[in-house]
């Protein structure tokens, strides 16, 4: 059965949550993983772009910048302390 944007966003959120504190993930890391997992069910780059948009707009994840741009769970800024 074809995946929905919600389902892919949820799967991406799981990846980000599991990687938090261990590895910073870039949007393309999430996209590649989803296409590998669900490519057979119609999930492509454009679909993943929508899922990332939903993930960020919902506030569940945020973009961060540490030399490059990443997607992470919202957390307090270390440099602010």
């Amino acid at each position, binding site marked *: 059965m074809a995946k929905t944007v919600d389902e892919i966003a949820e799967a991406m959120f799981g990846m980000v949550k599991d990687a938090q504190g261990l590895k910073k993930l*870039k*949007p*393309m890391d999430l996209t*590649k993983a989803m296409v590998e997992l669900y490519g057979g069910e119609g999930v492509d*780059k454009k679909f993943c*772009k929508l899922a*990332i*948009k939903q993930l*960020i*707009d919902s*506030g569940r994840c*945020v*973009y*961060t*910048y*540490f*030399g*490059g*741009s990443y997607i992470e769970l*919202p*957390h*307090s*800024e270390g*440099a*602010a302390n």
Partner: protein
Amino acid sequence: MADNIPKTPKLDELEKGRWPSFVKEIKMAAQKSPMAVDLLGQLEQSYDEKIGYWKHGGIVGVMGYGGGVIGRYSNLPEKYPNISHFHTMRINQPAGWFYKTEALRKVCDIWEKHGSGLTNMHGSTGDIILLGTKTDELEPTFAELQKIDFDIGGSGSDLRTPSCCCGMARCEWACYDTMALTHDLTMHYQDELHRPAFPYKFKFKMSGCPNDCVASIARADMSVIGTWRDDIQVDPDAVREYADKGMNIESDVVDNCPAKCMSWDGKELHIDNSFCVRCMHCINVMPKALRPGKDRGATVLIGSKAPIIEGALLSSVFLPFVKVEPPYTEIKDLVDKIWDVWSEEGKNRERVGEFIQRVGLGNFLDAIELDPVPEMVAHPRENPYVFYEEYFEEDEGEEEEES
């Protein structure tokens, strides 16, 4: 407020001379901005102790956007509490940097209300730079800027705010409408501008002619530089007039032509346009006599960058000539293919020029389905880019036969 301004003997040195001084501007702002007062204090201390007291942030931004806000924090927040947060906001400038004073006044009013009041018109990216605000003020500033039709620009691993020269608005040499293309690309690629999805930054810079006033050939991942493909327009009477008024056309024009494509017999200037490299030198020297040709468009180049991870690169030719007309389909199709390949295969913090160097131009051209052309050869005999598979196949066949 003026009584609180700290003594700044070292910074005061930077007020001397006849040129504009950022110290003078900060002191003016300090008359009503506590942030500017603390900024002077911290800056003087930095000059005194030869230590920078700024910390980089990486999280602050506005909802939904991944770029446009650069987090800054003071490392001395107890001593300078007003600049404990001092974030920068990049605001997307209008193409060609044209404003009504009314619009600028509104931006400044918003920034005095929500930030330090200090601005940088404009940053090296081209954006309006608003210097210094607190995290809590980011969303209110953004909301007010949106009400007056300004948006945040790019930062991080995204498309940086496209920028251009003033083009046809003021310049007679513009070979295409740089401002129209810049505006169109900005609107078309909003998602890429605000939602970082690339291995690293990507910059477009549009120059209307080969004089390249925005230095796109050195500063943009994709440079779109105006050019022409027919003959330089010559007014022979105006050329003779330059000569009559004392210009040495032989030494000032002909001898300085890098392509050696022109000659002067004392009466008439002859140009072999097939050898002309469109450098603009002769046109710049005799603007009343020579003009770019009538069949105008642009050359698209790729790959320049300043030295960060690797050394500096200049752009090299990708599309020798393209007509630059709405809806700019040829340019957008090329951009989409380049981003597709680079986003998927590029390493973290690898600019597109570095990526091309790593994989080789031949492979890159294959991947984006663009045919090689001689203009892509940057340097004769030393260009590592273009390889023809049929030659490899022949060589391999010969080697096998020999062995």
